[in-house]
């Protein structure tokens, strides 16, 4: 019995969003009479941070404190239409829609303030703390709250904005098949260090090292959270989970968490992450978003590391001890490959 060390690497380009139907997102923003803003979305936050990032984008664009923005998501009966939270599209598509909506709402807010201050709206700026004042004359000011109340009760205006972000459907060239379904790509490179036991087929992951380029990290802590967690979802796909282990034969599928395996807290390994920020030209404040890309490079990197460790190339997932042992048997034992430092 021997445990063989292996190192594998994978690099990926990951498209942000998808092309089907043009992939639009909508946002509606309106002020309440207390000067606080509601952003209505049908995009869904499953914990990945959609609400937080939309809130930051709306507050930044409106020029109001983040505490004064409430994001209302995921009532697809009443909210503005959205294609959904998938394909790593949330930050990019929804964020851009929120910017458009918030800009329009900000325009009406400044019009209302201008009317109260008897100045030109073009001369007004916001301080991000809940005040609007004349550029270069901070004393000539009105609070966002007072402007909102004046709009509501005196001027008869709704401070609101509508936003949509749509990348038009890209057609396929009939002869070449060429198309451009995406405008923003994120990138990642991930290295896995692991060891494979040639007696049991067990794989132990020792270390992950990765670099992710995902546009501007609009919320760096949440980006890190996504990358840390997503890597283990990728690891789970690479080494553990499948509903049909003998696909297309449906037998022996996992029926519960005793049989449908996922990594537990004892299976994880240190992950050294570097985030590279290259703002995307058409991203909201340069953001593209981590999304599914958190998990994707892990799978090929693990397959490569196993090849590096024992010389067998396994091309179906998950790479279970059973598959490793069968492959080792067919090959006549482990053939460790060259390791580069």
């Amino acid at each position: 019995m021997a445990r063989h060390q292996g190192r594998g690497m994978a690099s990926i380009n990951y498209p942000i969003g998808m092309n089907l139907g043009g992939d639009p997102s909508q946002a509606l923003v309106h002020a309440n009479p207390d000067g606080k803003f509601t952003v209505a979305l049908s995009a869904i936050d499953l914990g990945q941070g959609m609400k937080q990032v939309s809130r930051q984008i709306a507050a930044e664009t409106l020029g109001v404190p983040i505490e004064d923005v409430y994001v209302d998501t995921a009532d697809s009966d009443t909210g503005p239409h959205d294609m959904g939270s998938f394909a790593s599209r949330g930050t990019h598509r929804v964020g851009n829609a929120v910017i458009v909506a918030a800009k329009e709402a900000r325009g009406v807010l400044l019009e209302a303030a201008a009317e109260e201050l008897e100045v030109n709206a073009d001369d007004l700026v916001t301080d991000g703390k809940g005040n609007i004042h004349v550029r270069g004359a901070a004393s000539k000011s009105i609070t966002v709250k007072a402007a909102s109340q004046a709009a509501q009760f005196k001027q008869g205006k709704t401070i609101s904005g509508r936003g949509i972000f749509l990348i038009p459907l890209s057609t396929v060239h009939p002869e070449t098949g060429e198309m451009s379904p995406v405008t923003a790509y994120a990138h990642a490179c991930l290295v896995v260090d692991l060891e494979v036991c040639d007696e049991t087929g067990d794989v132990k992951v020792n270390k992950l090292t990765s670099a992710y380029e995902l546009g501007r990290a609009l919320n760096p802590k949440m980006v890190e959270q996504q990358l840390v967690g997503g890597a283990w979802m990728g690891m789970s796909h690479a080494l553990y989970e499948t509903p049909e282990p003998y696909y297309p034969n449906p037998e022996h599928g996992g029926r519960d968490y005793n049989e449908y395996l996922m990594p537990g807290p004892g299976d994880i390994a240190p992950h050294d992450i570097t985030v590279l920020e290259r703002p995307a030209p058409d991203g909201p404040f340069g953001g593209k978003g981590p999304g599914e890309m958190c998990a994707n490079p892990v799978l090929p990197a693990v397959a490569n590391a196993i090849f590096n460790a024992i010389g067998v190339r396994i091309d179906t997932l998950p790479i279970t001890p059973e598959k490793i042992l069968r492959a080792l048997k067919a090959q006549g034992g482990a053939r460790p490959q060259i390791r580069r430092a």
Partner: protein
Amino acid sequence: MARMPVQFRLNGSDRAVFVEPAETLLGTIRRGLGDFAPKFGCGQGTCGVCTVLVDGEPRLGCLTLSVTCEGRSIETASGLADGPTLHPLQAAFMEHFAAQCGFCTPGMLMAAKALLDRNPNPTRVEVVEAIAGNVCRCTGYEPIINAILAAAQQRGVRRA
């Protein structure tokens, strides 16, 4: 079969309920008593989201019969905060981004509380063991482990 009376303490309050003989503690807490902090996941004791404390010990609410809890003290994540003041574990979970979708969180918190109550200064391995029965899809466990270690450290500082 006739319903049976059971009395226990839930997060410090005396509660009396009538339960079916085969009713689980999780069902009684959620449907009978309206405390929705413990979650229903697999229903067969393999995911840990229903973890509650029975007399300080972590128990799977989905596999514990309510009739066995007569006279016992039950704790759920709803009882962690003291009014507006979060429990150190809750604060640490926030600080360390230890939740995303949040479904495992009530179980993780209770498994962690049971650990820290009996072992205020655990090692990383002991933390891993304490939450080994709790599955998490989103976080990769690392932030949860770090949060529990940080909460232990902070409680130690306050006690000193």
